[in-house]
């Protein structure tokens, strides 16, 4: 999957890709103080292309500890779990599941919005591909607004950027591809090369997406994310990220 971190104050977008193995679960947000976890499980494409197997989010799990509610969004179903009970809607539905001031709102074949106490929200977008496509599979995208009231301890591949970090990008220069200039990014004392390019935001246009100008961080976000991407692998869909 690809990540776009929007930094509204500095008006920059930073992007990186992470290609772990299918089945692995990546922690996206882990906030022990507010008791919120968001994890994404990877699925692989049907086959390799250019000797590389692309992976995508096939399942996203949300755990709201204070409410003891879990929401599982897969490319098939949207399920709210409360203790041993579960209630599900399919992507063919338009509807809502409401429990303990948590609202799961499904827009048929399009997206799911999860709203917690009217304050925190998440959007999961469904990307359907042609069923008989030789390579591509259905996958999910997740959008987390920066206004979500996470605590300062929030972590995870996305959560760590919730309080907007200071990023400095300088020495912009032509890259190997003339359409993709390069620059140097300085972040938390690390200096590394980033490449300018385009990435897609699918919230409004689910088919073609909207182009987003982005500075790409190579090597699975190395230097931009804390530690290595493998540090964000968690054992279960609802696991909190353990402190290193």
């Amino acid at each position, binding site marked *: 999957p690809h990540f776009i971190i929007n930094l509204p104050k500095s008006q920059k977008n930073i992007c990186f890709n992470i290609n772990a193995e299918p089945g692995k679960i990546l922690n996206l947000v882990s906030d022990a103080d507010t008791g919120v976890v968001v994890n994404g499980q990877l699925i692989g494409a049907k086959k390799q292309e250019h000797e590389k197997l692309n992976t995508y989010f096939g399942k996203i799990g949300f755990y709201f500890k204070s409410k003891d509610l879990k929401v599982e969004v897969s490319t098939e179903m949207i399920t709210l*779990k409360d203790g*041993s009970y*579960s*209630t*599900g809607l399919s992507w063919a*539905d338009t509807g809502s599941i409401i429990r303990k001031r948590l609202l799961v709102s499904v827009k048929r074949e399009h997206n799911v919005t999860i709203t917690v106490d009217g304050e925190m929200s998440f959007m999961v977008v469904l990307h359907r591909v042609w069923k008989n496509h030789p390579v591509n599979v259905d996958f999910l995208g997740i959008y987390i607004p920066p206004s979500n009231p996470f605590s300062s301890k929030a972590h995870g591949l996305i959560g760590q950027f919730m309080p907007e970090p200071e990023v400095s990008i300088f020495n912009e220069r032509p890259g190997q591809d003339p359409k993709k200039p390069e620059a140097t990014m300085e972040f938390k004392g690390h200096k590394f090369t980033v490449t300018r390019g385009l990435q897609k935001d699918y919230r409004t246009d689910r088919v073609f997406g909207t182009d987003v100008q982005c500075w790409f961080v190579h090597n699975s976000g190395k230097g931009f994310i804390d530690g290595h991407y493998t540090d964000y692998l968690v054992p279960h869909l609802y696991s909190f990220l353990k402190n290193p």
Partner: protein
Amino acid sequence: STSDEHSGESTDDSDKIGIYSYKVQSTITSRLASTMIQSKVVNNAKHPQHLVFEVQIPKGAFIDNFTMDVNGITFTSSIKEKSEARRMYAQARAKGKAAGIVRSNALDMENFRTEVNVPGGTKVQFEIHYQEMIRRRLSSYEHTISLRPGRLAKHLEVDIRIIEPQGLRYVHTPNTLGDHFDGITTLSKGEKKAHISFKPTLAQQRKCPTCSSTAVDGNFVVQYDVNREKAAGELEIFNGYFIHFFAPENLDPLPKNILFVIDVSGSMWGLKMKQTIEAMKAILGQLQPSDQFSLLDFNHNVRCWRDGLVEATPSQIDEAKNYIQGIHPNGGTNINEALLRATFILNEAKNLGMLDPNSVSMIVFVSDGDPTVGELKLTTIQKNVKQNMQDDFSLHCLGIGFDVDYDFLQRLAQENRGTAQRIFGNQETSSQMQQFYSQVSTPLLRNIEFNYPQESVSDITQNSFHNYFGGSEIVVSGKVDTQNLQHLESVVTATASNAQLVMETLADVEELDDFMSKDKYADPKFTEKLWAYLTVNQLLAERNLAPTAALKRNITKSILQMSLNHHIVTPFTAMVIENPNGDERMLADQPRDNKKGCCPGTLGITPKVPDKTIPSWANPTPVAPSPASAQKAPTFAMKPIHTVDND
């Protein structure tokens, strides 16, 4: 008659009655099954004989047409108000002919029977058309055709077509007619359509290679289910009507608080009790750990296994099984006391806060007879129970055999948000009880409400439901203004095991037009008919519970109007079958289920009875027997005795 009827193999027996053809054609369009049974028979004897056409049709099915051709004279049918039909019948009674709908003792079936006394060499063609709405039970739709031609038929054919715009999940044709017919049924299934054909040859119909009797005697069954993508269900719109099929899956069952109230009076002695114990042990074994339950057994006294509800732990279930195993039936039947005690237990539990607010509370009442001890007046029992049942409790009634007033049980259940079922007291009692329990054992949703834009729809059938049970289906229908509307939207709200659900669905009013126009078998009036049947059934239930005579009269009027408009036989109409000149008429009407209208032989005994020329129910004033009817005339379908209810 066709030319080939005069050649080929003879199917005659010694009585010289032959069946040339016996055809059943059935088309299911979105749960609406339209069935035609046609039989061509000839009296090859030189003397006059009775020909009997007797078919079993599912209870709840509506006969909408019957025709009979006797040597080129065609009798056609029309639906009339009952007294009008009787007046017409009295004016021009048919000679040596009779028709009627009579109670049968088969599960979920009743008989339509026609008798015609015809001279030698006469050919008769019978054709009956009936329609039914196929209800989903235990995750499957089951279409049953009673196939009892009575003797060998030169051409025997069952042809069934299924057209389901939602798409067919599976279609099964279990071989319910016996091993003899293995491999004869052909089934072709497409995405939305299926075709089933059963055409045994004469040789295949014979019980044995040298037998002259037919092995075709039983039910031909087709089971299927449709695809279900949306929790909000499927909204089908066609010809100005909409049908909303709602059967969500992917929901966990709601916890249950269930009280079993079992009649252990003397009349339960023997097979009924044995089978009830067997069923109860199996049912108790199916309780979930989240359920609470208790048992009450009653004769002239009421005994509680436990004072209140207990959790369905393995040890409690074992103890309850032991208790039920030790029951010995004797004494009278105190229904009032038993039901009041059950409601008291549930009320107490609720008042003490022992009931999960998200749970479903129900009483399952099993009885085989009328009250004989305590309050005997059925209306008072009904009133007492209604007064004590809280709005969120439901009462489900099982009536075993025919000594029980099933109408009373049905009223009790309807009035208290439950369902009733007659259980036939035979070897199958246990499985029938278990099957009934399976239907109510998985409540998935509570307080289900269907909402449609008021300005665009009208005449909506029941749109608010107490519970939705897994494996079943809720159907709501209404008229829709398709002229001024492009889309119809519905919003369904319900309470699931752990959440409130709001489900929306949107359907294009022209979505089905193309599909329907391309299928020559699909019934273009299926939406209208389904709406009519739902409405009539709903009105019949409302009438059953109407508190005043005036209200009852108004409902009766509405039912009558619906029956006449949509050509269906209800308890307030009758079918007049007449020849082209109108000087010969027969009468057939719909029986109502009550105690007196039931059958003997509750343990599956089906005694044969002498044939009658014109049944007493069709012949209110005695007439002198005609020379033809005075002869002992064999019928080609010998059937058990019937008691007729003329409503």
